[in-house]
């Protein structure tokens, strides 16, 4: 798998050319939309209420469109101004900020009802500049995010960790900053469809004494066919033609014989219990 975060810092990698891909490539768009929808689902927001959502690394606003469709208000952060330009052009109903999340977020405590982020967190783990210390940046990010969320709110990050150490670093930093929660891995057995979501809870809501439970992952038991975004029909696990009815079934033969009898132009054998029966293979 290619790792863009090894090539250049995000504000340089997502230049105009790269940003353009996000408007022209339907493949990128569908994958992003799917992941955003799943992230939003994992947020478990109450239905029919407009919420105030933070989209971390909103890019050209693909995920924001999904948030908007659900009737929520959102604020988007991104470090690439080329991507933000595209988002501004789309005339989305959102407030966008050019921001490096490793510098921390400048929102007052208890502002947001939830936060989502698609394919961003792995960028934070990179020391792409001399002054960037990943651990420090993660700490600053998670602590300011924790305070910006309301108690009981969730933050869901879809991300592509490079290795287990990275997952460990991200998780332990988030826990140190006060979050609870963990990793939800969808389709863990599929190389292509496997998606990792970091589900973090900022405390529990006032009034609800129960602690928050990690949502269930998709595609773990029984669901072997992972949904491939490129394929619209799901593959049938059964062999081809197993439940196909034979063309010359007994009914068909009886009908044919009846027809020939009524025409009377050739001898027709009488019907018996052997009519249209399958013969043994040794015959």
């Amino acid at each position, binding site marked *: 798998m290619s790792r863009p975060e090894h090539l250049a810092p995000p504000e340089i990698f997502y230049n105009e050319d790269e940003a353009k891909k996000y408007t022209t490539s339907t493949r990128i768009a569908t994958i992003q939309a799917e992941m955003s929808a799943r992230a939003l689902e994992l947020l478990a927001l109450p239905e029919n*209420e*407009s919420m*105030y959502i933070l989209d971390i690394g909103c890019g050209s606003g693909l995920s924001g469109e999904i948030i908007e469709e659900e009737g929520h*208000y959102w*604020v988007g*952060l991104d*470090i690439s*101004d080329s991507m*933000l*330009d595209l988002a*501004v052009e789309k005339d989305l*109903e959102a*407030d*966008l*900020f*050019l*921001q*490096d999340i*490793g*510098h*921390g*977020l*400048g*929102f*007052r405590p*208890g*502002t947001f009802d939830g936060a989502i982020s698609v394919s961003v967190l792995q960028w934070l783990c990179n020391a792409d500049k001399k*002054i960037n210390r990943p651990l420090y940046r993660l700490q*600053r990010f998670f602590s*300011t995010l924790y305070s910006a969320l309301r108690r009981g709110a969730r933050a869901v990050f879809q991300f592509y960790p490079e290795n287990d150490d990275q997952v460990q670093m991200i998780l332990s930093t988030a826990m140190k900053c006060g979050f609870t929660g963990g990793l939800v891995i969808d389709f863990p057995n599929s190389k292509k469809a496997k998606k990792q979501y970091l589900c973090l809870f900022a405390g529990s809501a006032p009034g609800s004494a129960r602690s928050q439970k990690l949502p269930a992952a998709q595609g773990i038991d029984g669901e072997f066919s992972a949904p491939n975004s490129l394929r619209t029909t799901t593959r049938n696990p059964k062999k081809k033609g197993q439940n196909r009815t034979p063309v010359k079934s007994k009914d068909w033969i009886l009908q044919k014989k009846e027809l020939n009898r009524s025409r009377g132009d050739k001898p027709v054998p009488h019907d018996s219990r052997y009519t249209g029966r399958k013969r043994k293979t040794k015959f």
Partner: protein
Amino acid sequence: MRLITHNMLKCHVRGCDDSSKNFPLEIQDAQLEQIEAEKNDAFLVRMFPRLEWNALVSTAKNLSINNLPEKIPENIEEDQALLEILHTVLLETNVKEGRMVCRGCGHIYAIKNSVPNMLLAEHEI
């Protein structure tokens, strides 16, 4: 940036922790734009307790919007006239160009094409 989000925004420069000064960010040389948004009273009522009312009034005055009451209103869900005003001020007033200045550390956040630049310099992180 709409004014509702401005009301949530404080300076995030490291060490600029004086809460009396790092909020609200002062908007200067603003070019405002009226945008259209669907009215959503339930959302406004829900967001109302999160607003810092005094900061909102002073920011609005600074932008020559003078129709907000000075005192924190009560029972806003029944006050249709006020909800109407809040809707226009919070959700339909967009700062298109200008800058935001922190009164504590003096950091200037430039706003270009409705997008504030929140990037910090090396010594501020």
